[in-house]
């Protein structure tokens, strides 16, 4: 049995009512704990893309993939955990920040390539995009100032380079037994 690691699945689904519910229901029913789930439109009409992050060992990951494929509305599943990917989270962080602290906070933002997007005399709102650990890093550095509000998206991920999916003609990998 291999070790449980954070897995990232890119899941292409038909853009129909209730599909998110079906996918979420599958994870709940099979006790696959979702770390984050993000869904949005793709460039292909009628196709939505989900990025699902969850803990799973290799066997469990295969079963998650196989169970996703069983769903009528699921077009394509790609376990991109071990592929070269770009992973991004977006977070908005509102922190306590008076005039004396402002420079310090803005410097921190610079280090993390985050941006201040709103400001009032005693608080500041910061936007950051990046890998999850980078966002977590910024949050921990800002904590001493007093975080008033924090909202973040789930991970969205994409493979690097040439690989792309032909969504208009999705096909199963040649041998589904490999993914079984």
């Amino acid at each position, binding site marked *: 049995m291999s070790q449980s690691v954070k897995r990232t699945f890119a899941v292409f689904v038909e853009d129909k009512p209730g599909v998110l519910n*079906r996918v979420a229901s599958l994870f709940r029913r099979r006790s696959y704990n979702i770390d984050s789930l993000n869904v949005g439109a793709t460039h292909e009409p009628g196709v939505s893309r989900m990025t699902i992050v969850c803990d799973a060992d290799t066997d469990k990951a295969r079963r998650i993939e196989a169970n996703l494929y069983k769903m*009528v509305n699921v077009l394509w599943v790609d376990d991109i955990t071990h592929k070269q990917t770009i992973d991004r989270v977006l977070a908005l962080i509102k922190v306590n920040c008076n005039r004396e602290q402002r420079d310090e906070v803005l410097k921190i933002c610079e280090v993390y390539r985050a941006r201040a997007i709103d400001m009032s005399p005693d608080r500041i709102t910061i936007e950051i995009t990046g890998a999850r650990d980078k966002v977590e890093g910024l949050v921990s550095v800002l904590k001493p100032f007093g975080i008033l509000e924090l909202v973040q998206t789930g991970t969205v991920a994409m493979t690097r380079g040439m690989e792309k999916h032909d969504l208009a003609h999705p096909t199963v990998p040649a041998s589904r037994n490999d993914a079984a």
Partner: protein
Amino acid sequence: MTPANPKLKNRLGESLSGAQIIWEALVREGVEVCFGYPGGAIMPAYDAMIQYPIHHVLTRHEQGASHMADGYARASGQVGVCIATSGPGATNLITGIATAMLDSIPMVCITGQVPSALIGSDAFQETDITGCTIPVTKHNYLVTKPEQIAPTIREAFYVARSGRPGPVLVDITKDAQQQSCVFDWNDDEIELPGYRPDYAPPPEQLEEATALINSAKRPILFAGHGIIKSQATEVFTEFVEKTNIPVASTLLGLGGFPATHRLNLGMMGMHGETWVNKAIQDADLIIAVGMRFDDRVTGNLKTYAPNAKKIHIELDPAEINKNVYADVPIVGDAQAVLTELLPHVEECARPEWLAYIDEIKGDSAVRDIKNLPDLGKLYAAHVIHDLYRFTEGKALVVTDVGQHQMWEAQYYKHDYPRKLLTSGGLGTMGFALPAAIGAKFAQPGDSVWVICGDGGFQMTQAELSVCAQEGIKVNVAIINNGFLGMVRQWQQFFFGGRYVATPLLSPDFVKIAEAHGLTGIRVETRAEVEDAVRVAESTEGTVVIDFRVEQEDAVYPMVPAGANLHDMIQRPKPGAQEHNPIFETGEDE
């Protein structure tokens, strides 16, 4: 393509109501009978029904409707259809839908829904039935427009019967039934971009499997439900006879391979035969066909078949490596895979392995019922074994869930597929009578027997009225022991003998039958069994036999839940428990 029913008037291109289109679609899908219960949101559909050549069976509860559709599907191999109204009508179907889901039964359930403008308003009899049934259907649909009805029903049938079959629910709003549109029926192949029901077995895995099979010294074949579903009995039998590999069956696999075949060992698992489980633990190769290594089959996974490599032939990729790791997984249809493998496997006599199994049979074996002294007491095993003899093993038996179900599996030997219908995966009490009614509609020429307990029978006994109203004949054998027997057995074994909530008072079942205008018979001794069975077989209408059996008998052998497969509780030796004359004599029959 579906040939149009000759009784169907051609209405293509005409403006029809959604209600009419429902029946147009069902008839075109080959539906001849459906089981249901009307109500407000499905009334337009019911009103249109009389124009179409479909026989509707009014059930006494919607659960009965879904079990009947299920029984119809199991007995015929066709898609079963049930229909109900919104809200409670739809939710009452759910137990039957879940039953069909766990046993991969093709079924289409049509439900009415409140008008689309009222959806989400907690309207009278509104339930989010598509939401409710996501986990227990293969797929489901909410239809709000009449023009969606025909393509959706067509797709529902396709999804229900293709690949690993399952129940599909189509929820249709009342306004979609009432509005009209031009009726169109497209016979083209259905295109579902994300749906892949069939997998071709890849050659490498077939080669690996062949090599394992040809080099195995102690191989064993598992016959699961998939054998029956893919109609693989013939090629499976050829495979068995060529390779001389003995066969163990799952509960749902019974009948997929003839029970009386010399290489059939019997059922495996919790109440399987001791020698079968022992042979599995000693095997060096398991070739599992169309089964899913349920916990009732494996016992403790850590000690399960420790010496065996596993070849897992299964249509559903999600079942591979779920419970038991497969050394060679082959995702594909059982019949197709066996047909591919057959020419490459070698003939082999295996005298040592077969002799060894015979030997362990002798050690641990069998209930020699025929030779038991008649002590004037009636045992369930007597009843079922006699039923097997007097029906010459040819009945279509539908069981409920519990002790009698296991005794049926042990004592009624099924040589043909689709002659044992039982709720294996979900274990649904109350399944037997309605499923048997559905089965009788599918196989009117068969002698259909219900074997059920006094507990399960009372859950759905109202469906006896359906037998009377429809003039349908099934025979009902109630194994009446005055307890919820299987739970009582667990209480006896594992809960210190505290019989909490298991003693069961029942009505007079003979009078219940008579109250429905049917025949009731009471049997209290073994001598009366034969007569009762013969009377039941020759009586025109449904007959209910109340078999008053020994109250505290138990199903042996037994692997306690989660225990090692080879650690079975055996029936006490004679003398150890005087009142119980059924013991293992070491002789098979």
